[in-house]
């Protein structure tokens, strides 16, 4: 199993600013995933972050808006840049188990509100 610590748990930000979310895992993992969940909605994959390479972004998400860092096998950050009210959402960090058949482990999420 994996224990994920995600910070901050919530934040209220002004339009035009940026928020960086940190994700720390208690074990080394190859792949980390960042999801967005809008209120009462499904999880939408933003990007997959591999250590030592550029993150892979899903359609509709771009690096300029959602830059990701993955400096080592236990840590990643997601920045949401140039915030607008439409970015208000829950952002979730997730990691997979050692094998591809393993379930995803989720952080507790970051609830972002943009004024």
């Amino acid at each position, binding site marked *: 199993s994996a224990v994920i610590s995600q910070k901050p748990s919530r934040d209220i930000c002004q339009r035009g600013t940026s928020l960086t979310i940190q994700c720390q895992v208690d074990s080394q993992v190859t792949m980390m995933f960042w*999801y967005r969940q809008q209120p*009462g909605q*499904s999880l*939408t994959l933003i990007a*997959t972050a591999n250590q030592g390479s550029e993150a892979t972004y899903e359609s509709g998400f771009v690096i300029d808006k959602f830059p990701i860092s993955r400096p080592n096998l236990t840590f990643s950050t997601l920045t949401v840049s140039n915030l607008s009210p439409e970015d208000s959402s829950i952002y979730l960090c997730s990691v997979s188990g050692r094998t*591809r*058949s393993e379930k995803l482990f989720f952080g507790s999420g970051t609830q972002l509100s943009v004024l």
Partner: protein
Amino acid sequence: AQSVAQPEDQVNVAEGNPLTVKCTYSVSGNPYLFWYVQYPNRGLQFLLKYITGDNLVKGSYGFEAEFNKSQTSFHLKKPSALVSDSALYFCAVRDIWNRDDKIIFGKGTRLHILP
């Protein structure tokens, strides 16, 4: 590209009755399938998964799911619903032959158990 569909936004079931939450999937290869549950203001909790073998898998809280390859379905079931089962349920799929190795979630089904 892989996808997963949950055709019902909401399912209402009387307490004590059997429940079914539907899920269908589309992958190019063989799927790994998962069910997660999300209670209000709480993180995602893993319920069960299908990897291979027996088509009927049993999971947490008395839930089970049946993998049907010909119908590309993975419906979640419980023989006798409890009021405490009321929550948001997500089906997810991973295409084991997809190099992107990502897990995609359905839109979610809100389950209401009526006392």
